[in-house]
């Protein structure tokens, strides 16, 4: 039987890279980001095996013998090579495709707004002695990224803590949404990619003559675009402290 050799040119293979054609993409991914790389193998899949390899700088998540892989790039910028090999096991002929990927510094980060002070919300109201009541403070998470990089959404976790025992947590809501409860720890808050800030309303209740410091801390920030996810590079300030200042402890009016 005449042996038929299959050459590289008879196999149509091309690599697909993930979306996001702006600041970062599969060719120039941010350090720490997750991207998908794919090929369209030979339509005749009989006796074919596939192998993905990378020269360094990242980790292939899961199987390396499919038509696509997910790669989580590491934190070291540089140029790395992805190699895909399709082998016809019946003939031992193979085709390789390579893709040079330049891992770039991740410029995405979330940051809390500046610390601030404000009066208890009852300021200006007529109050009785030892008055107590609700007061709401508003925290802001700010998105920082390359302006020409479009994303679908961004996410973060957060915690709320406050000093002293005079106050109690009443409600927490994100961007005008429903009450998330008073656990003090909240995960997976999702914000549209077109919004550059996220506002969190934290309502407490306590005596107007006492103050408290409310600390808001974010974590696990991530930007999402299609199948790509980019973690927060951690350079932003993850804490914001809003101080609720007490009202003057004025006595009742006395007269003769």
């Amino acid at each position, binding site marked *: 039987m005449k042996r038929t050799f299959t050459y590289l040119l008879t196999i149509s293979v091309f690599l697909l890279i993930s979306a996001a054609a702006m600041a970062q993409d599969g060719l120039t991914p941010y350090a720490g980001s997750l991207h998908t790389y794919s090929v369209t193998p030979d339509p005749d899949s009989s006796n074919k095996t596939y192998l993905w390899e990378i020269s360094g700088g990242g980790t292939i998540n899961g199987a390396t013998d499919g038509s696509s892989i997910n790669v989580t790039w590491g934190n070291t910028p540089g140029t790395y090579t992805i190699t895909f090999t399709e082998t016809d096991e019946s003939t031992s002929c193979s085709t390789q495709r390579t893709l040079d990927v330049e891992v770039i510094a991740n410029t995405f980060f979330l940051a809390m707004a500046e610390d601030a002070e404000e009066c208890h919300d009852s*300021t*200006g109201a*007529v*109050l009785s002695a030892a008055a107590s009541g609700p007061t709401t403070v508003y925290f802001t998470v700010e998105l920082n990224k390359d302006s020409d990089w479009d994303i679908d959404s961004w996410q973060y976790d957060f915690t709320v803590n406050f000093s002293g025992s005079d106050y109690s947590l009443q409600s927490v809501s994100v961007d005008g949404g429903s009450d998330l409860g008073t656990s003090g720890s909240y995960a997976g808050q999702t914000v549209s990619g077109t919004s550059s800030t996220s506002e969190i309303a934290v309502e407490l209740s306590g005596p107007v*003559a006492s103050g408290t410091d409310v600390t808001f801390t974010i974590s696990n920030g991530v930007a999402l675009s299609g199948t790509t996810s980019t973690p927060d590079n951690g350079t932003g300030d993850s804490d914001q402290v809003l101080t609720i200042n007490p009202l*003057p402890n*004025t006595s009742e*009016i006395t007269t003769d």
Partner: protein
Amino acid sequence: MKKIVLLFAAFIFAAVTANTYAQSSGTAPAPGATHTYSITPGDSNNEIQWTVYNADFSTEATVATVSAPNSASTTITWASSVTPGDWYYVQVVETDSESCSNTKVLPVQITESNFYLELDAANSTACYDNAVSVSIVDNAPVYDHGNATLVFTVTPENLSGNYTGYSFDLAIDVPDGFDATPSFSSNASMTASTVTVTDNNAVTITYTVDNTNSYYNDSAANAQDYTATVSISNGVSINGVSENDTDNDNSDFTEVSRPNTSGITTD
């Protein structure tokens, strides 16, 4: 029966809500009264602002004068023109360096005062102090009746224990030729026609009335008799509470006389 019950209930309601007389106080001041209003600030360095509002708690009252609007303690003088029964609100706002503030409000209802002064003559009748003095002028006797000492008392009622002193205007009505000179108990003095009392006690007024007229044998037997009528007005406490003269007891009199002996007749 039902109609009577409803009328009775209406009467009781009206009686309860009607403005009653009371001692002037900071929460129930009389027209013209001055009272002290105070707070203990949360911090003595904070800013303080006193404001008085009308019953709508929106319009600043023009009838209340605040002496120290930025102090922890102030007096407020209520105009004499305020109407008993009207409500006002005394507000104070304390603001700290962080612009945080606390607000206190005291409701005030103008109330007619039950303070009054009562004038009483010690005696309704009195004699001259001494015997008639006789002198001979142009071979005819001239009679000089001299002085009569008349005592009156002014007694205050329902003055506030938080304020000391009161005043009133004093006048005496005697016939022509009679000179009346008052002296007072140690707690009072007079300037022009106004008597000022330094405490909340009664005042004793002693008039020395000198009959400077001359009388002769042909004078009427009772020519020397007269009535001294003393009256007071414009009674007011030290903090501006006007007397409420509902009992109409601001005037009294003493009748002075001596036996109406006729002249000596002969045959």
